């Protein structure tokens, strides 16, 4: 059974709500204010530049940056939707050999830092790499002038690399949406004469669309803020342009102005996402999911399904991991030293803390928005999520200044009042790094949990309220058990992303402090992939374990009691 009622209808039915400052609203205001601080700092720098080079930028490089950014985003969006959605549907709705393995293995590329994948494929596909060497041997070519070979360091290369490392976002969110759909829906569609494909297109896909849209929005924000890959592949995007102006030209105003252009991109994305969600009104009302029924694939279709699931894993994970392993073995002595375990510990601790804090805050915001149904709150929460789309280094600068100001203000006050210097309390500590992670990845928590809560019918809340549960109790007793999967998804996405985070960590960290990412970067920044292979592998491994955990948690309820019908 599926109830068709939109939450906006629901709000309207209750009439216009007067603005009240209850704990949920007040809390949401405070949180968004703090989280938005770095972005507001950047905006401030953009609108009050010391030396205005906007006209110069606009006349020279900016249009080019915008065009290539749009091309990159279009390519990556198309690629991730194609791979992510089709793979998610295959592993949840179809039955074919290896399905159980594919359903978790498809997430593996998420653990690969995109810049590492970029390095790996450059190593493999460049002139001196094994592929071209073999081609030259076979065809007797001698120099690069004798033949044409696709240039990996190009816009196309960046689209492929980013698609292969980012599609798991779409896959994960689409899969959890497909899983949370009661299978009765699919069955009903089938009894009404739909083919499996039609059932997917007309029922499953529309119901999963909010989640898919969230996934694509996340992918595009990651694409927008990526620096490592586009810089390495020499693609001139807004991000590389901003780095040039901000940190090479040392022009804060100009850099911030390009950052604002990027924010406009993001706001456009968020509006599009919201529009896509507004059109839907599907809530799954079945209380107990029925046992899933999978379409048994035969013959050519079976092979096609296996191939479709295997290729992204091969390109996004197995090949890069294989090359890293071979380097790690060869350069074992260079890479392993006493700083390594400490760096690993720091990474895991920070990533776990950040994941915990971000999920709590994201849950608070998403639930506050659901409770109050306030457009203002919703927009505030979305604004707080903007940190995700801002490149890490810019976010870090946006954190440095308010933190420094607060520290110096406290110090000044304490000196004046008590003659004690407190020095820097927050700046240059792991609190600053942690704050950066939470600001940066809150969007993952908020987006995932908002989508998760969106799939819980408001009738559930109403039912809880009739049992005299307050909002907090309703959240814990009713909503949390239902969206547990979404919470785990959010926590793991954030954990893995924090493990990979580099630019903000570099700039905000305390003295003599390394994470695995900064440790790897020392070598990777000099294109010495061999020496950093072990560190990179550890980042991957630390990401892989929770990823496997995640897919097990998500699939547990259903995968061990499956039946398959023709």
């Amino acid at each position, binding site marked *: 059974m599926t109830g068709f009622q939109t939450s906006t209808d629901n709000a309207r039915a209750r009439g216009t709500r007067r603005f009240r400052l209850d704990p949920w609203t007040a809390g949401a205001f405070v949180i968004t204010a703090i989280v938005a601080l770095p972005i507001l700092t950047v905006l401030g720098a953009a609108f009050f530049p010391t030396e205005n080079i906007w006209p110069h930028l606009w006349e020279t*490089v900016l249009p080019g940056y915008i065009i290539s950014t749009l091309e990159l985003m279009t390519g990556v969006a198309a690629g991730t939707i194609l791979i992510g959605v089709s793979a998610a549907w295959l592993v949840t709705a179809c039955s074919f050999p290896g399905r159980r393995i594919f359903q978790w293995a498809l997430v593996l590329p998420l653990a690969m830092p995109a810049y590492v994948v970029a390095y790996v494929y450059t190593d493999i596909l460049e002139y001196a790499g094994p592929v071209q060497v073999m081609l030259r041997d076979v065809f007797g070519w001698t120099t690069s002038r004798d033949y044409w070979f696709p240039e990996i360091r190009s816009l196309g290369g960046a689209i492929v690399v980013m698609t292969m490392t980012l599609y798991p976002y779409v896959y994960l969110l689409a899969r959890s949406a497909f899983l949370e759909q009661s299978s009765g829906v699919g069955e009903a569609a089938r009894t009404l004469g739909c083919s499996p494909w039609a059932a997917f297109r007309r029922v499953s896909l529309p119901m999963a669309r909010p989640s898919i849209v969230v996934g694509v929005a996340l992918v595009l924000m990651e694409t927008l803020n990526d620096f490592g890959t586009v810089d390495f592949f020499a693609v001139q995007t807004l991000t590389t342009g901003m780095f040039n102006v901000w940190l090479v030209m040392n022009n804060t105003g100009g850099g911030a102005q390009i950052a604002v252009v990027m924010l406009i991109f993001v706001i456009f994305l968020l509006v599009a996402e919201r529009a896509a969600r507004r059109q839907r009104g599907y809530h799954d009302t079945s209380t107990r999911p029925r046992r899933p029924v999978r379409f048994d694939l035969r013959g050519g279709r079976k092979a096609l399904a296996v191939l479709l699931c295997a290729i992204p894993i091969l390109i996004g994970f197995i090949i890069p991991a294989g090359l890293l392993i071979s380097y790690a073995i060869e350069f074992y002595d260079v890479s392993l030293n006493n700083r390594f375990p400490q760096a690993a510990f720091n990474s895991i601790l920070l990533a776990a803390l950040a994941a915990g804090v971000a999920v709590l805050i994201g849950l608070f915001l998403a639930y506050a928005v659901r409770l109050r149904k306030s457009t203002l709150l919703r927009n505030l929460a979305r604004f707080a999520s903007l940190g995700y789309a801002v490149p890490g280094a810019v976010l870090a600068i946006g954190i440095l200044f308010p933190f420094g100001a607060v520290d110096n203000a406290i110090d000044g006050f304490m000196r004046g009042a008590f003659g004690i210097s407190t020095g820097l309390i927050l700046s*240059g500590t792991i609190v600053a790094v942690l704050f950066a992670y939470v600001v940066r990845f809150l969007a993952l928590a908020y987006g995932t949990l908002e989508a998760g809560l969106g799939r819980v019918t408001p009738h559930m809340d109403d039912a809880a309220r009739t049992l005299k549960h307050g909002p907090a109790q309703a959240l814990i007793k009713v909503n949390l058990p239902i969206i547990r999967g979404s919470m785990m998804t959010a926590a793991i996405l954030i954990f893995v992303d924090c493990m990979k985070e580099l630019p903000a960590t570099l700039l905000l960290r305390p003295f003599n402090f390394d994470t695995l990412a900064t440790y790897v970067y020392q070598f990777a920044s000099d294109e010495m992939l061999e020496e950093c292979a072990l560190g990179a592998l550890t980042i991957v491994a630390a990401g892989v374990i929770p990823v496997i955990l995640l897919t097990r948690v998500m699939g547990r309820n259903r995968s061990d009691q499956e039946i398959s019908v023709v």
Partner: protein
Amino acid sequence: MKYRLLAALALIAAPTATVMTAMSAASAAEVNVYSYRQGALVKPLFDAFTKETGVKVNVVFAKKGLIKRLQAEGRNSPADLVFTVDIGRLAAVVNAGLAQPVKTAALEKAVPAAYREAEGLWYGLTLRARLIYTSKDRVSKGAITSYEELADPKWRGKVCTRKGDHAYNIAMLAAYIGHYGEARATEWLRGIKANLARKPQGNDRAQVKAIMEGVCDVAVGNHYYMALMLKNAKQKPWAASANLVFPTLAGKGTHMNVSGVMMTKHAPNKANAIKLMEFLTSKKAQSLYANVNNEYPIDPNVKASPLLESWGKFPRDTVSLDTIAKNRSAALKIVNTVGYNAGPATN
């Protein structure tokens, strides 16, 4: 609910606090460094310093944004010294008012006047020459001897460089502006852009590799990369494919950039910071630096590494580092105006 939330927060706060205390527990004899130079390059020097003086060196390394951090931290910044390559960054710290002058007899004796700021706001530690690498097979010796010739149409489709807005190329262009002015510098860069074999990409070493691959015949790169490639088994063939040219600019000599050190305005450990500065300019550290990273020592009385000595002596360009720093902003605008990073096929 309230208590559970509190408990969760406490769980998060406890380990955070532990780690923070562990890290703020600093010893008295220490000096804090913000370094744009990688740990592996500076660590042997700092270790030697600690061994000699007992003063601990704490380091934050980042390639971007440390100036912003210094600025944001203001008068309470823990940093004593900034370590960096490229005159542009040294000048940026000075221009932001974040440096303080240091003058000691030892520093002024070791560092020639041309490679330190007049007031003592920064001191050069090593020198790096920006060279032209040419293909051993395809370019005869003497076919190119100056930076100006990089724009000569005879090299159409045969030149490789890293991105135009990289600090090393910006400094080179700024020196060119110093001799010829902005208009001619723009024409020069336009000429090089037209000569490019491919879109600017990769680091300096990647350009030499491109020579080996036959992608280009002429590349621009810093001198010490030759030494680094010779030391690396995989990269040795790249180095072997190229000859080094010490080019001239306006008939004067080879463009040189510096790596340097400066004291921050609010340095809390001033005495130890001066100790470290003097140590780094000492004959011992200069010779260690020269051999670890194959850069030219700032002290003319210290010998470079045997490899560098084997390349022989060469004249240096005469444009002052101050002029280069001043022309940087104009140089970056020229790179954008020309659209250098977009590659050869565009206009």
